[in-house]
């Protein structure tokens, strides 16, 4: 009997992976994000089963800001998740010489400090935005499959999908943020250690929502362990829009015929991607106005 309770406890701990925010107390909107507000990552317990299953989505909603009192400000602070992590200033190695040709050459990029969302923007937060502003996404205007279709019951904490780059910019602007640049995104994804994956440099499909997970769909954000900066889902779950054109890196003599200043980057791989796409250095891109898929979302930066 004791052993069974240990199993249940282990399972509960697993649900709280990526910092255990789900179910936690909502930080006030004015509280400056810092490492100190982040709970200590919980080590993943070993589930006593011969067939490991990927961690499930979090069952509870993410914390949200406390809405500002009516009339207190001309523009009330959006009542959406606002947990950001500060990425310190300094150089990092962007790209790799051992990936796809468009990822080369590995080169040093020096960035000032910036803030980036700990989580991908969720359905619930996007719904709040839409409700507050009456915003209509590109897909809705076109009458094609849109974020509402993917926002089924129980998916409050799943990343919003079927959003274009322009839709993502609209959301980030509303919350007083912006999309990360490609360099910012990669620096954040590689963590302080400069890893290729959130957990290290060796591929491990059990640590992210990817094709090998077999889920064939999104999971609640933060279902997997965070990377060294405390950021969740920087590998898999959904591709994330970044605000940079799809062009060759400085010093590259590789000319991808798809390079275009009119495209915008997509990073991190989605729930149907493999090691090559999920790697932090992988580069994908889409049309910023018309591309909406069931595995494309975003997170904001500042």
């Amino acid at each position: 009997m004791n052993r069974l309770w240990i199993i249940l406890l282990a399972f509960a701990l697993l649900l709280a992976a990526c910092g255990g925010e789900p179910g936690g107390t909502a930080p006030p909107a004015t509280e400056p994000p810092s490492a100190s507000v982040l709970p200590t990552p919980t080590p993943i317990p070993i589930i006593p089963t011969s067939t490991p299953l990927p961690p499930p989505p979090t069952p509870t909603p993410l914390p949200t800001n406390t809405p500002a009192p009516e009339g207190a400000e001309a523009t009330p602070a959006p009542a959406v998740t606002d947990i950001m992590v500060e990425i310190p200033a300094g150089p990092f190695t962007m790209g790799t010489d051992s990936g796809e040709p468009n990822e080369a050459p590995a080169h040093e990029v020096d960035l000032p400090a910036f803030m980036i969302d700990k989580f991908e923007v969720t359905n619930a937060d996007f719904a709040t935005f839409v409700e507050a502003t009456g915003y209509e996404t590109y897909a809705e205007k076109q009458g094609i499959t849109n974020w509402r279709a993917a926002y089924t019951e129980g998916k409050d904490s799943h990343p919003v999908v079927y959003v274009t780059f322009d839709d993502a910019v609209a959301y980030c602007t509303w919350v007083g943020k912006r999309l990360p640049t490609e360099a910012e995104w990669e620096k954040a994804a590689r963590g302080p250690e400069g890893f290729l994956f959130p957990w290290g440099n060796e591929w491990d499909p059990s640590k992210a929502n990817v094709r090998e997970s077999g889920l064939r769909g999104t999971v609640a954000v933060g279902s997997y362990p965070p990377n060294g900066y405390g950021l969740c889902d920087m590998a898999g779950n959904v591709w994330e829009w970044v605000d940079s054109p799809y062009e060759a890196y400085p010093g590259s003599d590789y000319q991808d015929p798809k390079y275009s200043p009119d495209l915008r980057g997509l990073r991190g791989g989605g729930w149907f991607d493999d090691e090559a796409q999920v790697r932090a250095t992988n580069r994908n891109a889409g049309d910023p106005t018309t591309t909406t898929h069931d595995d494309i979302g975003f997170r904001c930066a500042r």
Partner: protein
Amino acid sequence: MSKKLLNLLLVVVMLAVLVPTALAAPPAQEEGQDYIVVADDWLSKLADKYLGNPYAYPAITHYTNQKHAEDDSYAKITDSNLIEVGWKIYIPSAAEAKAYLEAPTVKTVATGEDTIKIGGVGPLSAPGSVVGGIAMKFAMELAVKDINEAGGVLGKPVELIFADTEGLPERGAAIAERLITENKVVAITGEYHSAVGLAELEVCHEYGIPCLFSETWSDKITESGYPEVFRIAPASSMTSRAVVDWLAKVGVKRVQLIAETTDFGIGMAETQKKLLEGMGVEVLDTIFIEMGTEDFTAILTRIQAIDPPPDVVSAEAVTGETSYNLEQQMAELGIAPTEKTIGIANQVAVQPEFWESVPNGNYFVFTHVGLPPTLFNETTNKVADAYRAEFDTEPPSYALEAYDSLWILADAIERAGTTEPKALINALEDTDIVLAQGRYWFKYTSKNPLPTDGSVPAYMWHQWPDPAVLVLQYFEPNQPGMEAAVVWPEVYQTHGTPYIVPGTKP
């Protein structure tokens, strides 16, 4: 609470959390959807993601092209390996994909119940050569119309049942089987791709149904030696021979071959290497490439490093759109054609599309199978007029061959007085008829077997011995293919020279 009950509860709790997510998105979608391509997409991955089967990608190609025909906001996919960022494509529902992948045939002519049914095969979808398939289908339909207007065969109209083989051998074999077993065709003709033809001929042989190939070049087609297999296109070695004879005349010493990894490409490269070396010409390492390759920088850089540069760089053994990519990059990088190096293109260089994809393609040399316009007869002119009216371009040899193939079968059925397969094969062996490409006959048959001493190549079995194989060369940008200079054989030379040095005029 018993231990068993607690265990059960634990399982239920875990399933309640896990299963809804795992089953949230079924592998095969119930409804089709528009999809905008991103940089890292490829069709087989999308087919895997949305249809649960990576091999279902031809269905995406097919339905997207079908949508394109009605709404040009959808992309036109001419090569399943080449999709562009931002394209709108259509991913069919699982049911639509299944219907397409399992549909064996496309009926194009229905003339009533009591008809003589002939199966037509060719690629109408990528990865097959769509241009080739469309031309062949058009020519076959034209032939059926002409045959029926002339009274049909054995007093009955001919019915063509044309099926899209997509350039895929396994699909070709499946289609051949269905044409024979379900559609009850008396013969099959057409086909553009050798690999598909090789799959189809096994089915024809199994069922004993005659198969007249009109545009498959691999030697192996007629080397099969099957009584059911006939061919009116040249064998690959016959075209290889033409180029090799021409190269000998021009006096080259060192040749670089590039070939695709298909039966056609490998066969042609091997034959040319053997023939060239037999004439004392050095053949540098043959470079093999995959069909659908877009970027040839790596291999062309290797060739660029050869010092001194080779006398010839030949892309003749690379087909379709892939050949255009390769040839444009060869020209762009200054590898060939140049003053020092002859550039040989694939035979599809004769098509107007060549100049769209290979704007730097002046002075490329290419082979052309078929009569020069000066030798067109009344039938050729009639077919050519109809073809020009439809496509606004000269008919390629495979269109003329496709037209003629229907008539050859109709003629044989009429002479046999029956559609019984053995009688039909016997009548085909006795073919002697003048059509769009000249006089057709088969030299080596059951009545005149191939010599056993190997003095005649095995591919001459049931092979039309007289296809015209010309070597042509462009000497002006955007020149129509049939206005290029005929440089070989000498008897057909149009500008009195076997080669035009780049930068000069004949």
